[in-house]
């Protein structure tokens, strides 16, 4: 104890001595920024990291002080390149006008100019821009190129005059960089200069890039006409991907002639440009392009019409519906199919008259028209289809009901209910299929009435089943109870089958409430439904039947159901009860197999008991062996006991020699024979 106390005192003293060695705040800062001046690339980043931490989250006042210290580093001729580079990096994050002179002085330093630009380029203040601009007068070569690039990135219009002069520089690299910078800065003056170069030959390749950048900045400033002029020059003078970009720019600038260019392209031979126009039209942002082409649709070649029609469909462009409909009799099959499908989306009620007769025909057109009809939306579509569903012409009625059923719209349910009473079997079936997929609680009474009227028809029961499956448990049970009141046997059977499709406590209560007065068929259905119940709720009832019934079939079904439920519950107790109710070896084998699937020692005991029954010895023995193998690692004693019992039971059972050998081998593996002797003699 004394030793621990002494150690604590020593530790505290050491801490106090260490704290006394701390510098005052100002001294610490002086050391930190002073140390930075000698920082080399080869050193670990302790000092830079501490300065970064100092900057992170510093107050504005503190940042001003730090900036002054960093400027000192830059101004110190003895400071290392690594130190100054790091300093520039920090000033990029926090530099103001205060550090501009120190940074500007580095712009002619071959080693550090780029780092000084990093800080000045990011500094939004005018002083930084002026410093860069002034340096153009003294810099040459790559250093000047760097400054030109930085001026472009800063997008300051004050640099336009100087850059315009450099755009005509004898040095090609400088001229190219200046052009790019002018493009980025944009504005009217830059645009004018770039426009003048359109007819110059040879033009620097950077001119195209500069035009695109400049065009975008003009668009951003709302100078659409200037942008349009520039894009037009570029479109005329370029090819390939640049021409594509120019075309997009023309559209963005609202250039009416762009539509004419698009039509020209779509009718031309340049596949790349065709791709570009169609891609542009397909983009949501290119919606205006697609709409602009509506008037031209019918005159375009089929291979262009097809993707455009699909584009109108994808964009939901209802304005294109009439133009698309005009292509419904195209000589090109692909176009006709696309038209039918597209009209389903953009056509509205007016397309119904076109699509309905087509759907009644044959081939791919009919299929596409049918798809179109199933998609049509609009207030009058349902009304128009309902009228056709009541048409005297059977074929018209059939198609209308099939379409209505496939449309999956609740608004059409009354029409489908009416059609479910049609004299035609096919119409009834389609209508009921639709009702089954769409109907809700409101349709239940009508469907029950139909079920009663049809005396339990399968189609009606299926439709009712579809609705029933969407109701929640309580509502569904109430529906059943109500419908069962006074129902005939076939209707009752149809309704009770629904209970099996949606098992739950409410459905179970309905089934259990069925008395014997409804006849043997109902009784049998209820019994079999309980035997197949997905959980163990009716288990006790089944065990009672299995134990008492004299009907062998009932006994087998009930016992099998019970054994399955014991497996679901992983209940050894239930398996034991099942064993007691078994009348035949096959039944016992089922129980043994079920116990074999359970883990743990508890499931072993009833199987061991079965070893005494010669009729199931092989099955019980196999399960014991498997379980002993599983238990051998964690519970070797239990495994050995089970194996001893198994080997004992197999004594004299000649046909089970292999099983006995395997059991003996396992026993020896768990307890080697020599050790067995020792254990037996030593009594451990």
């Amino acid at each position, binding site marked *: 104890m004394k030793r621990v106390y002494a150690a604590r005192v020593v530790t505290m003293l050491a801490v106090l001595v260490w704290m006394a060695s701390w510098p005052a705040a100002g001294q610490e800062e002086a050391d930190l920024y002073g140390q930075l001046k000698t920082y080399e690339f080869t050193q670990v980043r302790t000092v830079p990291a501490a300065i970064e931490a100092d900057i992170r989250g510093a107050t504005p006042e503190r940042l001003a002080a730090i900036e002054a210290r960093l400027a000192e580093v830059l101004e110190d001729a003895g400071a290392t390149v690594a130190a100054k580079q790091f300093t520039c990096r920090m000033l990029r994050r926090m530099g103001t006008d205060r550090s501009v002179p120190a940074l500007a002085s580095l712009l002619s330093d071959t080693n550090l100019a780029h780092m000084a630009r990093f800080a000045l380029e990011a500094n939004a203040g005018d002083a930084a821009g002026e410093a860069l601009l002034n340096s153009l007068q003294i810099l040459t070569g790559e250093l000047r190129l760097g400054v030109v690039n930085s001026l472009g990135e800063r997008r300051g219009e004050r640099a336009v005059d100087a850059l315009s002069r450099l755009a005509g520089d004898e040095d090609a690299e400088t001229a190219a960089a200046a052009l790019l910078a002018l493009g980025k800065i944009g504005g009217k003056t830059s645009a004018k200069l770039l426009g003048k170069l359109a007819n110059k030959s040879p033009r620097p390749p950077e001119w195209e890039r500069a035009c695109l950048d400049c065009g975008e900045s003009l668009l951003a400033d709302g100078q659409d006409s200037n942008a349009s002029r520039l894009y037009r020059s570029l479109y005329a003078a370029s090819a390939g991907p640049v021409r*594509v970009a120019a075309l997009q720019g023309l559209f963005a600038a609202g250039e009416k002639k762009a539509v004419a260019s698009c039509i020209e392209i779509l009718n031309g031979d340049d596949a790349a440009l*065709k*791709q570009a126009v169609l891609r542009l039209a397909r983009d949501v942002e290119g919606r205006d392009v697609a709409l602009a082409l509506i008037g031209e649709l019918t005159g375009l070649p089929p291979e262009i019409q*097809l993707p455009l029609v699909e584009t109108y469909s994808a964009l939901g462009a209802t304005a294109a519906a009439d133009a698309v409909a005009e292509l419904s009799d195209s000589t090109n099959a692909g176009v006709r199919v696309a038209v039918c499908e597209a009209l389903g989306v953009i056509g509205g009620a007016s397309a119904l008259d076109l699509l309905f007769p087509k759907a009644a025909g044959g081939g791919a057109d009919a299929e596409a028209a049918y798809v179109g009809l199933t998609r049509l939306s609009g207030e009058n579509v349902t009304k128009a289809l309902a009228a056709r569903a009541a048409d005297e012409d059977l074929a018209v009625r059939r198609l209308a009901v099939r379409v209505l059923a496939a449309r999956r719209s609740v608004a059409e349910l009354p029409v489908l209910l009416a059609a479910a009473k049609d004299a035609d079997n096919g119409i009834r079936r389609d209508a009921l299929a639709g009702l089954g997929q769409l109907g809700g609680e409101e349709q239940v009474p009508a469907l029950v009435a139909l079920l009663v009227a049809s005396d339990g028809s399968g189609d009606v029961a299926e439709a009712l089943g579809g609705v029933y499956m969407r109701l929640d448990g309580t509502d569904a049970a109430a529906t059943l109870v109500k419908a069962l009141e006074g129902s005939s046997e076939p209707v009752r059977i149809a309704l009770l089958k629904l209970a099996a499709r949606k098992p739950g406590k409410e459905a179970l209560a309905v089934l259990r409430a069925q008395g014997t007065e409804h006849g043997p068929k109902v009784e049998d259905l209820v019994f079999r439904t309980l035997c197949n119940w997905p959980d163990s709720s009716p288990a006790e009832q089944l065990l009672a039947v299995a134990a008492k019934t004299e009907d062998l079939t009932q006994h087998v079904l009930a016992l099998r159901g019970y054994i399955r439920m014991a497996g679901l519950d992983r209940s050894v107790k239930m398996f034991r009860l099942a064993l007691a109710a078994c009348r035949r070896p096959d039944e016992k084998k089922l129980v043994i197999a079920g116990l074999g699937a359970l883990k743990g020692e508890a499931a072993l005991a009833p199987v061991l008991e079965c070893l005494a029954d010669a009729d199931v010895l092989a099955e019980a023995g196999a399960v014991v062996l498997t379980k002993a193998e599983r238990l051998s690692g964690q519970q070797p004693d239990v495994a050995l006991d089970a194996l001893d019992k198994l080997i004992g039971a197999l004594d004299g059972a000649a046909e089970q020699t292999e099983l006995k050998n395997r059991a003996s081998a396992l026993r020896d593996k768990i307890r080697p024979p020599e050790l067995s002797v020792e254990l037996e003699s030593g009594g451990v």
Partner: protein
Amino acid sequence: MSEKRPVSRRAFLKRTTAAGAVLGFPTIIPARVLGAEAPSNRIVMAGIGVGGMGRGDLRNFLGQGDVQVVAVCDVDSRHREKAKAMVDGRYKNQDCRTYLDFRELIATEKLDAVHLALPDQWHALIGVAAARAGLDVYGQKPLARSVREGRTICRAVKEHGVVWQTGSQQRSGRNFRYACELVVNGRLGKVHKAEVGLPAGRGGGSTAPQPVPDGLDWNFWLGPAPWRPYCGFGPHWNWRWIMDYSGGQLTDWAGHHIDIAHWGLGVDRTGPVQIEGKGVYPTDGLYDVPTNYDFTCTYANGTTVQVADRTKHPMGAKWYGEKGWIHVDRGGLWAEPKSLLRERIGAEEIHLKETRGHHRDFLDCVKTRAETVAPAEAAHRSISVGLLGEIAMLTGRKIRWNPDTEEIHDDPGASALLGRPYREPWVL
């Protein structure tokens, strides 16, 4: 029940492709594939950046029957030669051409597409150069090293109508797609939170300068990044622990699990409105990316996405909603209640794009011109979350973000970090 049944984009594209094929519609094959330059009707490709990851992609593309790889490019001759050997071995010839400079490759070869696997500081420069040349691109994630670079890539892809697939291959995984479909179709009810768990970072790293290996152009490897002496990490895995080239595991994995979280939330074309959090930074050695990180993004509808390293969140994406949670990672798919995983996505519900494999999807889209499963815009929005988290942690301030204009409100210091200045002569 709604009367309106819009056609899903998937069904639309499927029909377009099928009908186009029947009609011989010209847009399904790139011009150069149809033209005399590629009479074999194969997609002509090259690999740029063919280190370990790049050669993995290369192997995938070489295994596709409709691809012809004609060239490889890398600033390290060791990588170039290994990649060339793979290509030549596949075609049993010596025809694969090698390049050190990607600009020369793009200008010289007649290509349909390129695959890119580069250190992050190069992603935008080369990705944009390829797109501007009209080449379709399979680019490894993260999309870019800065938000501004990511937007420039998206713009170039859109401007020139090229196909872009980001290497966020989890989108082509069945489990990930199914998890996202469950979330996006409302099986969780209203989702109020998603958690994203990513690997933790690493400190340390030797600062000792080393001789530049033969065959490595170190200055070119650095490219637009600040100059520094070579000290062994260069063309190898460890560059990802240095902020000049990567944001560490955060940005490396943002393209996976943040991307999946976004996909499920249906926000992969927008972004958060506020980001706040803290990082732990190493104080010694060479590396400077956060070793641990934890930040929260809030979206316009109030949903939050919490991103942290795996010491706080389990790996993967996990969504929490009114009706339970769903968690997906490469190791499996879990839910509470478990019954959620028995749900089927109905015909009329949202079906996210299903692919025949991530590389295959890219090639299919090169032919159909359809959108890939991991397009540039979605990748940009995923990595933007990682990059904005990085800015919030670096500045120690709460970031207020406009996902439409992609600007930070009232914080010039933080705004300065949205882009990355380039060393001369590089310019985007």
